[in-house]
């Protein structure tokens, strides 16, 4: 019989799960406030998905265009998010991003510079001004390495290659700890903690064509869900418009939006620059309508409007999708992204070195000479664990979430560059929130031993049963299902089919079997992740089925337009009393009047207001 006292236990004030940008930020901030801070990560430290971020982090530093201001960043964010953002979160983000970026520089990040020697900023889709602090096209690497090199000196107890299995609570429903497993040895460990921060990222690995790595299995969503927390807005899955489409083995790997930010244009097989045909009404006034104007903008003319390639990601992804469906796709079923005719070879190599390298090695293609082939790839979850904006606490006492696994900040669609700054801002807030909660708590709550036993038994039974389903094949089946039935363009019947398939897979997964021992066994790890992927997928599919409109990244073929009515609602998923998933349509809070005004002001008015404000401060 399993004896919990034989399992190693470590006690923390604050424990962070996930060591990407958000997790590291949260842990670093927590060390300033709390004594014992732990950090658990599924991979090695510094390998988390943040390294894949390329373009930059958005912050209204105003180093390149002095007119920038947090209010305009806020307006861009909520308009990009189709007004479904949690207002307060978008505000906090826009207000604090600049400070956090400067703080990151003090910790050792070395951004590209402007002529004045300040942090350089580049253009990106949906951002009014050049706003993305960047380092070539490897900004995510810079961020994670900076936080890592700084973080290791802050006294954080770091546990690498350690998978969190499930959350433990005390009898009052407060967070008490988490059961984890070291991947290399298969040893179980219980981390007892006063507060727990989830920074586990998204669940893009449920799709076949995805820019996400194996880590992105929705662990945070599933653990929070099992612990009784509410998930919100999971139907909004961003498909990044430009993933690689050829060769097949690299399908989905990200091509940074920076390519378009640096002037790259999209063409179909007929050579037409098709994005001019897809400019939504709402952005007509802010987007160039001729190639001539777009070219002037690229040359730095501040009066010219932005090229349509820099529309928000949902728009561009749908446009590429539509071109391919209309038979005007590239040879391998994508669109052509051409930077070669727009910039000199030297510029391209300097500004986009890792894209150059990536295509050279993986596709044997020289992007300074030929156009890339790109197509939409599953990229980011706007939805996630529902949190309170200022503290980042979820609906479970002591459970916090930040980064991609938290919901609300990005509404129905995320702007490029807003995720890295989201990690910095909300990572930091989570560190503060979790520390404050831990401080007022006193002792670490006592976890329920039966729960811990059950979690461990569930995990080991996968290894112990004599025969069962192959986890790799189950995963492939799920990916097919999500790709075909819960993809970019969704319909009633496909979603129903998708949900039914997930139900079947859930049944099969009860009998999943991993061969071999518990030591560094990817088959077992895959099987453990399946539960999380299935919960995540189900929540996505059910929420997508419920939301009968097209908004941002969620596109319903049967409800092709935005509906005023639906803008009033969030979709909440949580575990019901009966153990089944509950999907609730919940009325949103009234927005703060001032924020509402900023979001709905015209750009000209807002720019004038900001200029006025600046003048009066002088």
């Amino acid at each position, binding site marked *: 019989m399993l004896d919990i006292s034989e399992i190693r236990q470590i006690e923390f004030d604050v424990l962070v799960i996930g060591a990407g940008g958000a997790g590291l930020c949260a842990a670093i901030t927590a060390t300033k406030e709390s004594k014992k801070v732990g950090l658990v990560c599924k*991979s*090695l*430290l*510094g*390998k988390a*998905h943040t*390294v*894949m971020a390329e373009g930059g982090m958005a912050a209204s*530093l105003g*180093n390149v265009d002095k007119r920038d201001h947090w209010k305009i960043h806020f307006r861009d964010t909520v308009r990009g998010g189709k007004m479904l953002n949690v207002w307060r979160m978008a505000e906090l983000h826009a207000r604090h991003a600049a400070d956090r*970026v*400067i703080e990151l*520089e*003090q910790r*050792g990040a*070395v951004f*590209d*510079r402007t002529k*004045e020697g*300040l*942090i*350089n900023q580049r253009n990106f889709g949906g951002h009014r001004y050049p706003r993305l602090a960047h*380092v070539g096209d*490897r900004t995510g*690497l810079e961020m994670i*390495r900076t936080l890592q*090199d*700084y973080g*290791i*000196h802050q006294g954080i107890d770091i546990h*690498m290659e350690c998978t969190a299995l499930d959350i433990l609570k005390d009898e009052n429903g407060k967070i008490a700890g988490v059961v984890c497993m070291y991947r*290399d040895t298969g040893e179980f460990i219980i981390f007892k903690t006063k507060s727990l921060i989830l920074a586990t990222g998204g669940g893009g690995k449920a799709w076949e064509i995805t820019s996400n*790595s194996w*880590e992105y299995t929705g662990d945070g969503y599933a653990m929070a869900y099992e612990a009784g927390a509410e998930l919100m807005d999971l139907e909004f899955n961003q498909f990044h418009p430009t993933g690689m489409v*050829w*060769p*097949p*083995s*690299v399908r989905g*790997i*990200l091509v940074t939006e920076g390519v378009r930010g640096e002037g790259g244009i999209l063409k179909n097989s007929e050579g037409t620059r098709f994005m001019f045909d897809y400019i939504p009404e709402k952005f007509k006034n802010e987007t160039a309508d001729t190639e001539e104007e777009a070219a002037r903008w690229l040359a730095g003319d501040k009066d010219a409007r932005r090229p349509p390639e820099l529309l928000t990601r949902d728009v561009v992804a749908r446009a590429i999708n539509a071109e391919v469906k209309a038979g005007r796709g590239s040879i391998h079923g994508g669109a052509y992204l051409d930077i070669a005719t727009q910039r000199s070879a030297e510029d391209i190599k300097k500004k986009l*070195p*890792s894209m150059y*390298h*990536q295509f050279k*090695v*993986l*596709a044997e293609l020289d992007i300074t000479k030929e156009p890339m082939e790109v197509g939409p790839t599953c990229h980011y979850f706007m939805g996630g664990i529902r949190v309170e904006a200022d503290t980042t606490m979820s609906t479970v006492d002591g459970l916090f979430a930040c980064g991609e696994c938290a919901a609300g900040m990005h509404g129905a669609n995320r702007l490029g560059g807003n995720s890295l700054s989201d990690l910095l801002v909300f990572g930091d807030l989570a560190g503060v929130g979790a520390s404050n909660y831990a401080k007022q708590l006193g002792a670490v709550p006592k976890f329920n031993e039966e729960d811990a036993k059950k979690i461990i038994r569930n995990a080991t039974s996968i290894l112990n049963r004599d025969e069962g389903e*192959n986890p*790799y094949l189950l995963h*492939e089946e799920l990916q097919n299902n999500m790709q075909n039935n819960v993809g970019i363009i969704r319909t009633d019947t496909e979603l129903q089919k998708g949900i039914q398939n997930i139900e079947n897979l859930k049944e099969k997964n009860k009998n999943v079997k*991993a*061969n*071999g021992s518990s*030591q*560094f*066994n*990817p*088959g*077992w790890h895959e099987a453990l992740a399946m539960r999380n992927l299935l919960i995540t997928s189900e929540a996505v599919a059910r929420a997508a089925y419920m939301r009968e409109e097209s908004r941002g990244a969620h596109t319903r073929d049967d409800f092709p337009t935005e509906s005023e009515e639906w803008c009033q609602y969030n979709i909440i998923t949580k575990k019901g009393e009966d153990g089944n998933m509950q999907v609730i349509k919940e009325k949103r809070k009234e927005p703060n009047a001032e924020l509402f005004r900023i979001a709905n002001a015209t750009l000209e008015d807002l720019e004038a207001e900001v200029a006025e404000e600046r003048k009066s401060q002088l």
Partner: protein
Amino acid sequence: MGNRKFKIYRGDNTKGELVDYNCDVTEGMVVLDAMHRIQADDANDMACRWNCKAGKCGSCSVEINGRPKLACMTRMNEYSPDETIMITPLKAFPIIKDTVTDVSWNYKQNLKIKPFSPAQNKNNTEKGLVMQQVDVERTQHFRKCIECYLCQNVCHVIRDQDAKEKFVGPRFMIRLASLEMHPMDDADRIPAIKEDHGSGMCNITRCCTEVCPEDIQITDDGIIPLKERVVDRYFDPVTMLYRKLFKK
């Protein structure tokens, strides 16, 4: 491209063997794809470490036909169709299982390095540090490092001579170089570079630079300039005298 033969190390740090596998290879596949195919079809429990699959995270470092490489950036068509591809774990580090090694030693080296210490001068403003692009370029070049540890693995001081106690290895030499050449860093690491980090252990045989998947000029731009800075401080009577006289 047809069916290809593989030999993959299966086992741990005490015993193991090269196991034969076959895998159908299609256009554009990299070695890591083949490993995944083999893992899904024939060897569910075969350990392999990977993340981004695009040469950005530096997780999938292995030795392919005896040469240290990233499995995700090594295309199958680099090898002739009848060549058997042998995949073994990094030699310089203890094997955990199959092709996965324990690289924790590297993380301990990083801890020894004095972190970035921003100068508190007029160039440290509330709008951030004021530095020109030309001045940060050297530092940025080193910061391309993805910590795949291929350089650490191929460095003979670490790999063959077991001098892990005396030398931090090429990866951390360039981390030191990135800090030492940072225009706004205030700390002095030269004594530590000579003594604790062991710049003299390197005999500049350049294998680190040869294997670097990010094409970082580890030797020419990183290690040699650091060695020269050590010479300034400890071996060159003229610069030593100059420092004494002008108290620099």
